[in-house]
């Protein structure tokens, strides 16, 4: 008897007819030519973590320079180069590829797909990212850009910075974003078309929802920034006057375009981190996520609200007061979705029975750190306060709290959570814990004093400060904190490297997860699943465990919970 057509799983047909195994090729050749989503995702994550290390070193060098007043450790040009490259590295080479890498690895598994829909497009995206990173860092062979984190026009015009550093920055930003757009198109198509039978949109896991929302976001904001850097290159090399103020162009145009992108990127990092936390916290609280649809709706609301709040970054620019209120409205409106997400994550924890394993520890730390960043962003949204605090170290601190919480703490939570799936081994628990506490103390010590220095009027991005302004102690504390933070980050990176071969073995489902990626073996085979399960609810793995329990006559409470070895 055949099952009904709608739920039938196609029998496996042999797709390759061959009489011998293909010649084994060297591993790097396999990786470099692979279009499999797991290889691409792993390469993105590895690359992102590598750039996290580099960004951490750059930040540490800058903080060393700023540890005592009027330090001469770095000259202004070197400091500005480090600052500019650090900005690009932290956002474009670490945080965004980390998010995309996890999306790319996990989402096809979560929705029960055997591969992505457009694998070659994703592969092109990865290699464009690698090309962009190479262009940015090869500028160290000549003169790297020294135009700042968001290089505001007209400082980037050829008159003021004639060397090719800005060109390298613009070209690399364009290449990287084009790569991200390709990856996003692939992800979106995959989520749209390749879901397992029964995986209706309302059963798609929150992390995959976050992936879909982020992909839309990149498809909207990526072209804006690509357009902006193209105009910049035209300005610099073909006598364009898009951003040249004296000849009729508008420097403010650059601010609008770039802030639309950066606001979107900020939101994307937070959407990724809350998406990951919405998977991790229910797994470790052993309780379904409270009000799943409110969380998904809030994640979806963050994307448009965040982009529409771009004027929040321009509250000191010569724009009319009405538009400042417009930016403030949308910036303050993000309180609602952020608040609902955090509330529901906490509510999930409240009724739960929490296992404090490393991913959960990082997840709790992430909520704590992000909450400081998001709350202090409220101050920066209020126009009259922003007139005082914008571009001071207070805004540096707010941004770092939100993004270090989002990309580093939540990113590490995701790393610890999905590491067993990627490698078949769990990350070492004791080193994780040591690393977490080091990072948590370090991050608070590094960024909290900057709030206090900011309200005293210390301006951000300066290569030195003066002892007479009363911020000496704050800067010293921040430098010490940064050192501690960097040590903690490096501990986790070392832990990851060591655990690839030396970690305790993990089974299919080390954490008792609810989504389909835990159905596949660890690491998953090339085609992900031998048999695709028929999805009946938004917790397909619980259904499978229950079915197994019914068949074997056990009580379902203990069924399928494979505890990890460590």
């Amino acid at each position, binding site marked *: 008897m055949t099952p009904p057509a709608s739920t039938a799983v196609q029998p496996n047909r042999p797709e390759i007819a061959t009489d011998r195994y293909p010649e084994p090729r060297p591993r790097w050749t396999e990786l470099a030519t692979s279009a499999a989503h797991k290889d691409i995702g792993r390469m993105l994550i590895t690359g992102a973590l590598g750039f996290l290390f580099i960004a951490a070193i750059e930040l540490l060098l800058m903080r060393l320079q700023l540890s005592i007043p009027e330090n001469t450790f770095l000259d202004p040009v070197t400091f500005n180069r480090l600052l500019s490259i650090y900005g690009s590295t932290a956002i474009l080479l670490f945080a965004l590829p980390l998010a995309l890498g996890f999306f790319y690895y996990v989402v096809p598994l979560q929705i029960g797909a055997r591969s992505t829909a457009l694998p070659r497009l994703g592969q092109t995206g990865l290699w464009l990212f690698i090309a962009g990173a190479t262009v940015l860092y090869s500028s160290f062979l000549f003169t790297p850009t020294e135009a700042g984190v968001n290089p505001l026009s007209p400082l980037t015009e050829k008159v003021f910075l004639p060397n090719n550093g800005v060109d390298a920055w613009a070209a690399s930003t364009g290449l990287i974003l084009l790569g991200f757009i390709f990856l996003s198109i692939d992800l979106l198509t995959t989520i749209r078309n390749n879901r397992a039978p029964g995986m209706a949109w309302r059963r798609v896991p929150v992390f995959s929802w976050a992936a879909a929302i982020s992909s839309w976001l990149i498809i909207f904001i990526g072209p804006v920034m690509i357009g902006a850097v193209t105009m910049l290159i035209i300005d610099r090399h073909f006598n364009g006057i898009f951003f040249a103020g004296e000849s009729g162009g508008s420097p403010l145009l650059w601010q609008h375009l770039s802030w639309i992108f950066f606001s979107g990127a900020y939101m994307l990092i937070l959407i990724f981190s809350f998406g990951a936390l919405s998977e991790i916290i229910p797994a470790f609280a052993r309780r379904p996520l409270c009000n799943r649809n409110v969380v998904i709706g809030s994640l979806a609301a963050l994307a448009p609200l965040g982009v529409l709040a771009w004027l929040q970054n321009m509250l*000191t620019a010569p724009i009319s007061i009405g*538009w400042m209120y417009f930016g*403030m409205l949308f910036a303050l409106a993000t309180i609602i979705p952020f608040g*609902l997400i955090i509330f529901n994550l906490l509510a999930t924890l409240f009724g739960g029975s929490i296992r404090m394993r490393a991913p959960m520890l990082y997840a709790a730390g992430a909520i704590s750190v992000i909450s400081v960043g998001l709350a202090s962003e409220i101050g920066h949204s209020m126009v*009259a306060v922003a007139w*005082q605090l914008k571009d001071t170290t207070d805004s540096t601190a707010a941004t770092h709290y939100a993004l270090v919480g989002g990309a580093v703490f939540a990113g590490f939570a995701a790393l610890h959570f999905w590491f067993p799936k990627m490698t078949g081994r769990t990350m070492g628990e004791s080193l994780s814990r040591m690393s977490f506490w080091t990072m948590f*103390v370090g991050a608070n010590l590094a960024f909290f004093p900057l709030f*206090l220095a900011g309200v005293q*009027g210390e301006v951000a991005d300066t290569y030195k400060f003066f002892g007479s302004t009363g911020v000496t102690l704050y800067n010293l504390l921040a430098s010490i904190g940064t050192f501690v933070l960097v040590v903690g980050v490096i501990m986790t990176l070392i832990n990851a490297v060591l655990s690839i071969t030396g970690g305790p073995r993990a089974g299919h489902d080390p954490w008792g997860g609810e989504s389909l990626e835990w159905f596949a073996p660890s690491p998953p085979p090339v085609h992900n699943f031998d048999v695709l399960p028929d999805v009946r609810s938004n917790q397909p793995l619980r259904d499978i465990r229950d079915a197994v329990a019914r068949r074997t006559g056990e009580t379902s409470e203990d069924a399928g919970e494979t505890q990890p070895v460590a």
Partner: protein
Amino acid sequence: MLCSIVPAILLGAASASADGVGLEPAHSHTAAQSSTLYWIALVVIVVLVAAINIALLYAIRRSRSSRVAIARQAPETAERAQASSGVSMVILGLLVLLVGIALISALPAAALIVIAVLIALGCIAFARSIGNRRGEPVASPLALLRESGVQLPVGTALAALAISLFVISIVFTDRAREASADGDSIQITATGQQWLWRYDYPAPNAGVAHPFSYYRLVVPVDTTVNLHIVSTDVAHSWYVPELAGKADAIPGKVHVLSFRADEEGLYNGESAVFSGQGFAAMRTVVQVVSADQYKTYVSDLSTELQDSQDAVVKEIKARSEMP
């Protein structure tokens, strides 16, 4: 103790000295309004951060002390409850947006109405699609609100917070902008250049040189100063925290910043937008003096300039007359 560090630091810092967490002391009406608004924001921020972190800590401690049974829900019930609370979220979003938009009628209204209508249509479509896909008739809005449980109060509280912060900010920002219209006012041009501030004062009387100074701005006390901030090269930002907020100097634009200093003294300032190598040294100082001293200062400056210009002219003449 997980996550107790942040609130501890916050509370400790707040209680240690209000001076440490407060803005620089305000010496003008504009800065005073910013400062008041800052205190409101700070209270909100501290309360939010403390609430989130204490709740987080409490949740973790609680579940450790008494092992709660693993929560189990029938999947379909859970799905239904979640779908309906999604709808309530959408209704809330609509409400907030409409109220928020109604509040800021000062904006280019047409643009906002279009945006609001688009968002509203999107929300309605989304809400309907949830009902349709479940293949069930859409329940009455009241039933949906009842099912959504605690989400509604929380969402409403957050919306109320957002709206009240918005209104309060507008009130204080508008107050800060009117740097008191009555009384005297003078217009001074501040020009940002890599990496100096130049100030051009109005000429004290006709026919004399037009006075200017670098680095030090001298203004009279209790007089509204309309500072026209411009730039001749890259973007800068004029920032004297005690007298006014910051205002960007963008080439090709004139940015007017008004303030009225209420006390004589020296106020330090700097440039707040990254402008290249000499950025850190691009500082300025505002000296607030009495009206008489200001007059003397400007006319002395003017005379001095006139004298040196005359000397130069004389020198040129002398050279050109040389055989």
